[in-house]
């Protein structure tokens, strides 16, 4: 369920390459700034496993210098189900 947004900083001089890589990464939508070296990344995964898998991919991208989590949304099941999703603040 999670929809998250990040600020992504490319390594010096690698903005265009980072954009290309993220465009090819599943569950990702990338919005580059037009006049500064920074991008906004919005991710949308179906469940926790996909979310975790995506996380691994993102942190392995070598063109990426920093990834700052800004906000996120998730549906939370109510108490009768006794299940809640837990996600870290990063």
């Amino acid at each position: 369920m999670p929809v998250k947004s990040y600020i992504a900083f490319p390594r010096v001089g690698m903005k265009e390459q980072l954009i290309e890589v993220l465009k090819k990464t599943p569950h990702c939508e990338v919005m580059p700034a037009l006049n500064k070296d920074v991008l906004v990344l919005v991710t949308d995964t179906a469940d926790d496993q996909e979310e975790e898998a995506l996380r691994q991919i993102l942190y392995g991208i070598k063109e990426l210098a920093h990834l700052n989590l800004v906000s996120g949304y998730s549906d939370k099941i109510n108490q009768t189900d006794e299940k809640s999703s837990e996600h870290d603040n990063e």
Partner: protein
Amino acid sequence: MGRSNVIIGFWIVLLAAAGLIFITSLSEEQSLTGDKAEATGPSGSLPVEEGVFRLSGNAVEFMRLYNSGIQGHMDINGYYSRRAFPGAPPVIPHPVEEFPENMGKYCLQCHGKGGYVAQLSAFAPLTPHADLINCLQCHVPVKTSGTFAASTWIRPAAPETGRQALPGSPPVIPHDLQMRSNCLSCHGGPSAPVEIRVSHPERVNCLQCHVPNEGTSNKNTIWTR
């Protein structure tokens, strides 16, 4: 009813956490009013334009609070419901000390810097004219809901927003600038009506792009020689 998913919107309050910390720290911050030296005294001052530069240091912080997830944001209907007509001084919707010792200081505690008031579940609106401190001269409390005698008063329509000369050009300012020297009071910050918040409160030379144009019929629309 069977099991149902209760959908809760926000579970990450990264910004909200930052926002809350910010709000509580606001009270420790330097007063936004009065510390900057007045360029002129009572015999001359430029009421317009200076307020926004004073508030500019907080523009960046205001943006973080937009998405803090705290309830209590003002909307445009709420904004106008406090005013008898567009441009009228808003009434005071909360109990107030009617003979405070230092009126300016008393009111500006909350309305000079803003902040969240839990008891009212609302963000305190920022005054667009912090240099005027006889507040109760114009702003009065609401002590009753009825009228003394029936009235046919109808509130005039609010000015049309979003009037642009060309597609994409900066919208004109559809209201008078008198008494409104702090654009950010109504257009930035968490107490600003949601519908008229700007996407770029950090750009504080507002009048560089936005010019006043009330659209009243007595202004010549086209210049001729």
